[in-house]
Structure formats: C-alpha cells, structure tokens
C-alpha cells in the first residue's frame, strides 16, 4: 500500500461521518445528530502533510514540528473502506518515520467512539495520557486520550 499526495480531485475524501481531529477516524455507527461531518482543510502551505489512499482514506500529518521532529497524525476512513485500516495505519506510521523522518507521532483518541485500540497498538502506538472531560460529544463531556509512537533506531 502506498500513499500519494493530495490533489484537488481528492476533496471528497476529506470529510466524512467520523469525529474531527481523531488519530483514527472511523465512520461512526450512530453519528451525533445535528453535527456536521468532520472535515480537514486542503493544505495551503507546508505546515501540513496531507496524503490520501485513493478512494478510501486520507492521512494528515498536522502540527508538524521540525525542531522536535514530531507531528500529530489524523486519519479519516471513508464508509465501506474499513478493511484497509490495519495496513493504512502501518503505512502512515512508516511514512511519518521514514519519509518525513520524524521521531514521534501522536494523536487524539476518544474511547467513547469505540476505537479499535488493538489496531493502534499493532501499529506501534501506546496510550500516554487520559484527559478527563476532554471532548464534548452528544451533550456530555467524555474522556480523551493521547496516543503516541516513538521511533527508536
């Protein structure tokens, strides 16, 4: 599996029925009512690295910091493409470490959204912090976690 750079024709991949800003944005079974679909902006400058898996998902490296060599990873998978998630996560981590030459990748995970944590652990991530009431979903605050992967080589 290879990621390729974003082109304007990939715009429909950038929004979907997942939680905004999540490390692994999978389509929610019951998206909260009255909430607009999550969307990331098309990149305007070089502070964001946005890649796509054509027809299936986007992978966004945001908050890129070349001093601390880290980036926040954000993935959004389109409905019907959930079977690519395992390979996609590993490809995204590999892209961050090998292509962008980063030292650390991290992202937000909301356990209330039923995220498959086993897939994240397989890709090298581990839960580093749990922030109580870190996100507002469906009329109540829920916990939010920071998961991170560090490159050791």
């Amino acid at each position, binding site marked *: 599996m290879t990621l390729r750079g974003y082109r304007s024709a990939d715009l429909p991949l950038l929004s979907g029925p997942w939680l905004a800003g999540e490390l692994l944005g999978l389509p929610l079974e019951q998206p909260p009512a009255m909430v607009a679909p999550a969307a990331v902006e098309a990149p305007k400058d070089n502070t964001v690295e946005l890649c796509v898996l054509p027809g299936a998902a986007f992978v966004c490296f945001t908050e890129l910091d070349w*001093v601390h060599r880290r980036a926040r990873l954000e993935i959004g998978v389109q409905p019907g493409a959930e079977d690519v998630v395992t390979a996609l996560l590993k490809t995204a981590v590999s892209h961050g470490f090998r292509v962008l030459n980063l030292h650390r990748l*991290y992202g937000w995970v909301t356990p209330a959204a039923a995220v498959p944590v086993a897939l994240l652990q397989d890709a090298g991530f581990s839960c*580093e912090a749990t922030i109580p009431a870190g996100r507002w979903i469906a009329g109540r605050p829920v916990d939010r976690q920071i998961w991170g992967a560090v490159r050791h080589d």
Partner: protein
Amino acid sequence: MTEIQLLDTAAAASALTAVPGSARGFLGVDPVTQNHALLVRELTRLGAQVFRTGDTLLGYLPNEVQPRQAYVASTSPDPEPLRGFLDFLGTYQRCTSFVALVPADSPPVVALRDCGFTQVGTLREHRYQSGAYQDVSVYFVRGEDTCRS
C-alpha cells in the same frame, strides 16, 4: 488577588523572551530557540492569550472541542498567581477543568501541584532540548463548576 493584565501578542512574545528559562514549553512555544516574530506567529496560530500578574506570565488556550476546558501555563513555581488565574478563567470563561502540558521537572510543575493538579500522563520524548528528547507531563485539575445556567 493581584491584578491580571491581558497582553497583546507582540507584548506577550517580548515578555516571554524576557524570562526565557522558565518559559520553555509555555503553551508549546520556546522563547530560547524561537525569535520574536516566530513567537508572535505561533501564539497567533494557537489562538493563545497571555496574561501578566506581577512578574508571572500566565497562558490560556481554549480546548476547541470542549468549550468548558482550557489549557493553561505559568512561568512561575509560585502557586498564588496560577490559583487566581484559574478562578479568573472559571468566572469569566466558565471553564470547569484545566489541562497543563509542561516539560517534566520544569519550575511551573511545583505551582501546578500546589493548585491541585494531578499528573494524568506523560508524552514520551515530545520535546527536543539541549541535545536530547525530553518527556512532557500532562496535568489535569477539575475546577469548581461555576456554570449557573
């Protein structure tokens, strides 16, 4: 409580530069390695607000996905300015919980602990400083619920 004064972004960058050692990691910026222009750009991009109380600088950053939660930062190990600042945010921004991301073992950790913050996690090797990767600690405290609506 002493007076809390809001600084504009340029003044905030200058003030952070004046206390470089204790302001490293202040809301994620680093006045030692970042110049004035870059500090201004970073603070603007983050949407951060910087306040001054006496000699202490205090930072506020709203949590975009939880309007009742705020990220806070302080440059001083003295807990009194921070305590007053949390009251201020609870009253005027209706914040009910506060999060602080600080480099491990930095001076503000003392103030955070005195204000009731507890460590809820550690971001591994999140910062590069002095030739090595360093951990960043995540602190959390729940304020009094001041929302009367």
